[in-house]
């Protein structure tokens, strides 16, 4: 790495001669340190400190359970509503956090983007990485809830990490496109909360898919998160799993999305410092 002969960089308007994956790999330490920074900063100078990681999702889930379970009485496939909703909510919370943080990762670090070079992909990746901590904490709480409410565990629980990975890819793909756009068009920042709310309502987080009127379900299943949320929940609870086609569609659509995200991001990447 310190051998001058091996680090000959040629820069033109089209790009450099170095391969992106190799450069990204070289900056893996930066990735970890930035993710660590995001986590530290989130809870510094708060009274409860890291306890917020636990308290925040609990509060949110309680509100959720009250509104949708008690007031709206949404169906939950025979599973206690709080357990049903909290399971979906853990995954949804992760998805929405990753999308939000990844979207803000470039603009929030504008001072770095305009003053120093590193593969720009490090910033959104570090944001996504830092959200894994929140997910880990929420997962522990979910595990405790499942044990306390005596939910029968099946070997399908091994599929849960796979669905988390698909959820991460979905959120990362969406976030990368939004992050690249927000550099030029801050409008995205205003659209995003509304779009996330819409996405939440068209995903089976607070209700089971059986609540969807049969005439609209072909439109409804265009959302890849339907398969993702259903799959995740079915791996943990005794709720019906997604159909094979729904699961396959979720995975293929998500892969396409993350690919699109990376391509869009890297194509716009070189102009970030000039526009941000």
């Amino acid at each position, binding site marked *: 790495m310190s051998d001058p002969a091996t680090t*000959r*960089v040629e820069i033109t308007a089209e790009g450099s001669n170095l391969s992106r994956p190799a450069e990204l790999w070289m900056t893996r*330490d930066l990735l970890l*340190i930035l993710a660590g*920074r995001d986590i*530290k*900063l989130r809870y510094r100078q708060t009274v409860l400190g890291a306890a917020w990681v636990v308290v925040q999702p609990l509060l949110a889930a309680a509100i959720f359970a009250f509104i949708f379970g008690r007031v709206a009485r949404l169906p939950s496939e025979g599973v206690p509503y709080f357990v049903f909703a909290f399971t979906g909510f853990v995954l949804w919370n992760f998805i929405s956090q990753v999308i939000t943080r990844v979207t803000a990762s470039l603009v929030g670090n504008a001072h770095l983007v305009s*003053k120093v070079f590193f593969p720009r992909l490090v910033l959104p990746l570090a944001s996504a990485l830092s959200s894994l901590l929140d997910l880990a904490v929420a997962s522990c709480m979910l595990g405790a809830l499942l044990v306390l409410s005596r939910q029968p565990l099946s070997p399908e629980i091994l599929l849960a990490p796979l669905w988390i990975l698909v959820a991460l890819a979905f959120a990362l793909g969406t976030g990368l496109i939004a992050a690249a756009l927000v550099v030029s068009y801050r409008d995205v920042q205003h659209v995003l909360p509304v779009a996330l709310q819409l996405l939440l309502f068209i995903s089976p987080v607070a209700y089971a898919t059986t609540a969807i009127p049969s005439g609209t379900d072909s439109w409804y299943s265009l959302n890849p998160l339907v398969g993702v949320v259903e799959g995740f929940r079915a791996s943990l609870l005794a709720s019906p799993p997604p159909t094979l086609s729904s699961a396959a569609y979720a995975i293929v659509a998500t892969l396409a999305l993350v690919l699109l995200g990376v391509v869009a991001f890297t194509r716009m990447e*070189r102009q970030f410092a000039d526009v941000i």
Partner: protein
Amino acid sequence: MSSESAVSLDQVSKYYRIRRAEAASAPLGHVLRRRTGPRLARAKTEELAALEDVSFEVARGEALGIIGRNGAGKSTLLKVLSRITPPSTGRVVLSGRVGSLLEVGTGFHPELTGRENIFLSGAILGMRRREIGHRFDAIVEFAETTRFLETPVKRYSSGMYVRLAFAVAAHLDSEILIVDEVLAVGDAQFQRKCLAAMGEVRRDGRTVLFVSHNMAAIEYLCPRTLYIEGGRVSFDGPTGSALAAYSGAKGRTGAQTAVGVFERVEELGSTLSGYRVKRVRLGSDDGLQDIFRPGSPMHIAVDGDGLTNTDDVEVGFRIRSASGVSVAGVRAVMRAPSPRPKAPAAATGDVTFSIARLPLNPGAYSLDVGLNDRRTDAELDLAEHVATFEVLASDVYESGYRPTDSEGPVFLDFSWFARSGG
């Protein structure tokens, strides 16, 4: 593009497309214009060339200074070299790991502690975690902040903050170091320390590209300097000459119209007092000239409005070295007038100064001429850098030894002897 050069630029240009004011004011204007087609869009934007056709090479282990006015393109050049922004055309080749320091404290976060910021900033500047850990003690020692390692840097004094930030950068282990105006911060003692650290980088055989407004620092670090003006390389060569070109172009108030003749350039609002320097001529005993030798005679003739009213106004001048440092200066009030000028007719003016033996070593110099009210001492007019001249090396001691500017700007007419032995 030899294999020896660490940095090589081949016809590099950088254009920024800026939107005109009226187009930018309409919120949807940008989007709408895209729909109406490229021809309309082009009419509403202007291209601004921040860098134009810049080519140069820096050899491995060389220290290159880069000077120029604000907005001349220095920062854009460094951003292109640091890969922060791509060139619009042309090619840059960097052989070696690049560390760039375009600001003090890149990546520092006020909420994080000194220790956390060392790792964060180090990683952002391109160091591996292991490397930072390896140099951690040296960084802390350099910054003199051992006691405050666990304190958030927002509680640091600005001096401590700058010291820690520079300390991280000073321990970057890159073959090519790109540094922008970072010595402008910190106290004098710390500035010296930074300068010494950068000198060490050079002695290690690493390549340094150094932008600064601190001419003394440029002179100290860099034998060769690039002078950038309007996005172009205006001068590329020995630092002394680059500094001369820069100080000559910067704030210059006189234009040379003939050998040794400098006419004052008109400026707004400069004739209010009614006293004004209009022309400065330089000459030797033989006539007008702008090249002198150490110890040779020099005459400075000043013409202007109201200068002959010597009861009301007094004339003074100051000689500046290439780096802009004042070397010597006199004012008429210091001495009673001589009965008649010793200068040749070509070099006498409303007021003429005569220097019997010019006490300057070889180099480029410039001249400020000023007018003051004789009673109140108020400044009536000041023509900065109104004239420039050069002093050439010569066998002034008649020993075969030609003094250079490395001895300093002042030429000493000296004698010496040794007690005879035995």
